[in-house]
């Protein structure tokens, strides 16, 4: 019998996927050095690719590695108990204002086995490589928990760690992230910062990390808001950090205030390798896990990847939530490949306010400082915001750059975006808003004459069976 929503563990989620016929168990031996990432890479580039559970890991007999289980909006809709993926932003958006705090339990499956000090050896875990230039494996699927030393706020986020020793790892703490602000406080106090890396959590625990919440909001509370039930968490062995009780693996460490570790090069989500850099260094204190742990590989590198994909619905939901508070007539929001957003508005409102698209574009940039492009479309676009041809059509038929393009020059960017070489620089990039909505008079005369498609009656005939009868397939 299928486990159903909400999924409290990676394994109940895998079981659900298997019962949907969506999970492929891979019996062939795979090497953590790049074999698994090659499956993920191809899986993002062929239609209807399954999610994977690798059951025969070279050098790690008994271990299993899951991957691609959150790739595409359909799987994420299943994980969130939402029937139509196109409604993800609209259904999750309002829930971002709700808080259901986690409940702390005394112990959980993530503590079945505990390794401390010298025993807490990272060479024993099947960390994967994503590319051929990495040198050492990197953890891509670790949910990192860090705590504000002044307020006690715990912030969780998926970060990347370079596994550089038996008992240490590097973490390039991106200066535009909340983690950076938290770590800054610890540094100024000259103190080591406890960190917990959670590997193999349930899918919603992974997804909530991709929302864009203000400082002070612990994303565990969104787990409860999304599912209607509190997340069960347990306290770490070596700190006050809380981790999901049902996680597969937890690595507890401390980030040194003054020491640095060499990091990279890594094939980042910016689509290219980052360079070598001296970044934050963590020393491992303890590793706890299930007795039969399942590791997780989250695809990274050139989009599309599972790493990009899990960010899309949550960023779209974040924007939907914020935009609805500032504008009327917001119909839906889509995020594509992390940096690009499509906002759909009601044309009866946007036509009356010529700068509405521009105002929306500005609001998006405030909410997501590294956003790159925002397309504002209206209901003429159709319901499917993933329709690439509709987007191209809108660019062709609704857009004249001199009046419909707004560029914010030299604004905030992401250091991992290679548009601007980020070595020693700020990561400047330009941001732009494309107004693809129908315009006011005198620019709307042609639209008023009607869309250039077959008549309603003729199209209806097709939908009512003529196509199927003649073509014989759907």
């Amino acid at each position, binding site marked *: 019998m299928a486990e159903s929503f909400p999924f409290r563990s990676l394994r109940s989620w895998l079981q659900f996927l298997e019962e949907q016929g969506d999970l492929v168990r891979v019996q062939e031996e795979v090497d953590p050095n790049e074999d698994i990432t090659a499956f993920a890479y191809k899986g993002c580039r062929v239609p209807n690719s399954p999610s994977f559970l690798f059951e025969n890991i070279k050098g*790690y007999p008994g271990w299993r590695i899951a991957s691609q289980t959150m790739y595409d909006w359909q799987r994420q809709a299943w994980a969130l108990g939402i029937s139509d993926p196109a409604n993800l932003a609209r259904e999750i958006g309002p829930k971002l204002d709700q808080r259901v705090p986690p409940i702390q339990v005394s112990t959980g499956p993530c503590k079945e086995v505990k390794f401390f000090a010298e025993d807490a050896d990272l060479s024993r875990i099947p960390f994967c490589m994503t590319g051929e230039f990495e040198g050492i494996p990197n953890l891509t699927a670790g949910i990192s928990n860090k705590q504000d030393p002044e307020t006690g706020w715990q912030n969780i986020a998926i970060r990347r760690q370079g596994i550089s020793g038996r008992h240490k790892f590097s973490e390039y703490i991106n200066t535009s992230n909340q983690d950076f602000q938290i770590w800054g406080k610890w540094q100024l106090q000259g103190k080591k910062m406890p960190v917990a890396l959670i590997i193999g959590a349930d899918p919603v625990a992974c997804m909530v990390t991709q929302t864009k919440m203000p400082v002070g909001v612990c994303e565990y509370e969104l787990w409860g808001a999304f599912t209607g039930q509190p997340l069960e968490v347990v306290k770490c062995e070596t700190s006050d950090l809380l981790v999901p009780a049902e996680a597969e693996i937890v690595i507890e460490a401390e980030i040194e205030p003054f020491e640095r570790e060499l990091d990279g090069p890594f094939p980042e989500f910016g689509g290219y390798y980052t360079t070598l*850099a001296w970044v934050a260094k963590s020393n491992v204190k303890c590793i706890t896990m299930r007795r039969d742990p399942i590791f997780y590989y989250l695809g990274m590198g050139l989009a599309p990847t599972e790493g990009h994909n899990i960010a899309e619905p949550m960023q779209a939901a974040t924007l939907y939530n914020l935009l609805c508070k500032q504008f009327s007539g917001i119909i839906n929001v889509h995020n594509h490949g992390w940096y690009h957003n499509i906002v759909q508005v009601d044309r009866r409102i946007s036509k009356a306010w010529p700068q509405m698209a521009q105002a929306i574009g500005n609001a998006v940039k405030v909410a997501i400082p590294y956003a790159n492009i925002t397309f504002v479309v209206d209901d003429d676009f159709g319901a499917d915001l993933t329709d690439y041809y509709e987007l191209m059509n809108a660019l062709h038929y609704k857009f004249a750059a001199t009046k419909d393009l707004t560029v914010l020059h030299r604004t905030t960017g992401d250091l991992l975006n290679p548009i601007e070489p980020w070595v020693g620089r700020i990561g400047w990039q330009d941001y732009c808003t494309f107004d693809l909505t129908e315009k006011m008079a005198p620019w709307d005369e042609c639209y008023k004459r009607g869309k250039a498609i077959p008549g309603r009656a003729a199209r209806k005939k097709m939908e009512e069976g003529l196509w199927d009868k003649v073509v014989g397939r759907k």
Partner: protein
Amino acid sequence: MVMERKDFDVEKLWRNPTPYMENRAKQFENRDWFAEHMDEIWQKYRGRVVAVWDKEIKAVGRTADEVWAALGDKYPREGVMVILVPEEEVFKVPYPADMVFKAPAAY
């Protein structure tokens, strides 16, 4: 539950590591040597792919394939550290501690 693997006890494997795991640990040592000698290596090999094993550069090439071909099967793939040495200088990410305290010599 179907997803459990009752016959596997990670603790036993942990105490009896496979050669692969020991090779991975060796790769970490190779990484440490590389990091310690970063400045000389960058001066000499920037823009190249290098292979590090046992405190030595064992192969250099323009691509990873070239390096692996030169290495042959002399070293375990999960132990030797094959890495791109980027053209640009190694970046020191500026952190608040550096603004307030003197950075340690190693950094």
